[in-house]
């Protein structure tokens, strides 16, 4: 088992490869370069990124974009469609208004941006894409942010690429993509962190493939003009989401779906979120209420470590 950690896309990325081969080093290097290259293209915080170039052309008609930005944007729009617009790439302006205008490492928990009144996020269906010419047109006043969507998409891509040679786990700041079971066919043990206690986990998941993601309002918070803000925007109000949940963890067939579902549940709240999750195929969830109550969907036990077994004496 080999692993490597580094900082990219605003998070700590950890790649675990279940192999003892010395050649795995080149796999780590390739993954690092891919993440760096994609960050240069997809980041909102890099002034010369392709995404910012597109944002600067808002309201100026169709703009031709590169292959990576095109694919990442199509993926984000697909997630917007799946979430009925609750997880949308059109939240860039709302995040900026809330004070999230630079890399979180440089914010030091305080934002000094001008306080403006939030407004509902523009409809993602106003983004016009022409696949034949690979052009994108965004309306005036809209700013795209691919944030977590791009990170999950890239992590899935890397897990799939490395998974052709080695069993791989990619941990993108707590959102985890798996390429398949480990070398001996066993599942990967993944702990669900408890937001109230740093050390003991809430549960130990045993996953062979797919992804698991946790969204929460317990981190990436900052004080903006005396008001606590966080990075999850409710597109219906344009304001950081007000929710009765602290964190939501979702297990899904892919990391991208898990990440989208965790955000939707957090935006909808415990009751509506659980109803929404019940309609999604092949997903399981573990929610932590603000008052400390832990809510599990009935099927989450299928993925949990069974700590005991019965044996005949």
């Amino acid at each position: 088992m080999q692993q490597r950690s580094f900082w990219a896309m605003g998070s700590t990325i950890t790649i675990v490869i279940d192999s003892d081969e010395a050649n795995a080093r080149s796999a780590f290097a390739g993954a690092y370069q891919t993440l760096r290259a994609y960050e240069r293209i997809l980041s909102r915080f890099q002034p010369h990124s392709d995404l910012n170039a597109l944002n600067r052309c808002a309201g100026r008609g169709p703009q031709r974009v590169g292959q990576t930005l095109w694919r990442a944007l199509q993926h984000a729009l697909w997630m917007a469609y799946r979430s009925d617009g609750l997880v949308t790439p059109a939240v860039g302006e709302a995040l900026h208004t809330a004070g999230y205008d630079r890399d979180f490492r440089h914010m030091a928990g305080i934002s000094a941006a001008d306080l403006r009144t939030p407004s509902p996020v523009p409809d993602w269906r106003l983004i016009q894409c022409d696949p034949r010419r690979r052009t994108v047109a965004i309306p005036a006043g809209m700013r795209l942010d691919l944030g977590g969507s791009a990170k999950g998409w890239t992590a899935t891509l890397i897990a799939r690429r490395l998974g052709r040679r080695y069993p791989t786990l990619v941990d993108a700041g707590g959102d985890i993509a798996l390429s398949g079971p480990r070398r001996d066919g066993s599942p990967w043990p993944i702990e669900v962190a408890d937001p109230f206690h740093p050390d003991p986990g809430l549960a130990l998941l045993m996953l062979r493939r797919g992804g698991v993601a946790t969204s929460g309002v317990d981190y990436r918070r900052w004080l903006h003009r005396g008001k606590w803000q966080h990075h999850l925007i409710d597109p219906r109000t344009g304001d950081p989401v007000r929710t009765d949940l602290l964190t939501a963890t979702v297990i899904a067939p892919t990391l991208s779906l898990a990440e989208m579902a965790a955000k939707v549940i957090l935006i909808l709240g415990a009751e509506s979120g659980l109803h929404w999750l019940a309609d999604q195929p092949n997903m399981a969830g573990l929610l932590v209420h603000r008052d400390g109550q832990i809510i599990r969907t009935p099927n989450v036990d299928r993925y949990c470590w069974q700590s005991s077994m019965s044996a005949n004496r």
Partner: protein
Amino acid sequence: MNQTRKPMRADVSGLKWAISTAALAATIGGWGWLTAQNPPEVAIAAPQIAVQPPAVERQPLPPWLTDDPMLPVLPTVVPLNIPARDQVAAPPPAPAAPPRAPAAPPRAPAAPPPASAAPPPASAAPALREVTIPAPAPAARTRSSR
């Protein structure tokens, strides 16, 4: 000035054509005549194919194929945290019954004890025992985006 004219050459092209045609006709005709005189003899002889059955030598089967395999006797696997039978401590002896009061009058023959008080039969179902397996170390931790 006397000028000698070169005599005209006779036009013999027709004669050439006639000779060529006659030679060709004679060649083809001769070939045809010869062919008709000496037709090739096609003798189809039936092939003599002798198929001999392969010689199969019946060899006796090796003993490992015919004999019944010996099944290895495996030792009974005992979970590590279940103590062996001889390691289980015997239950502590029941405390001695207090001596009866001497003044107690002799009782009439007592009724048989109720069925629920009877000792369990020897062939009771085996008791279930909880075996705890240590959880594996987590390979990763899912939490809010860090």
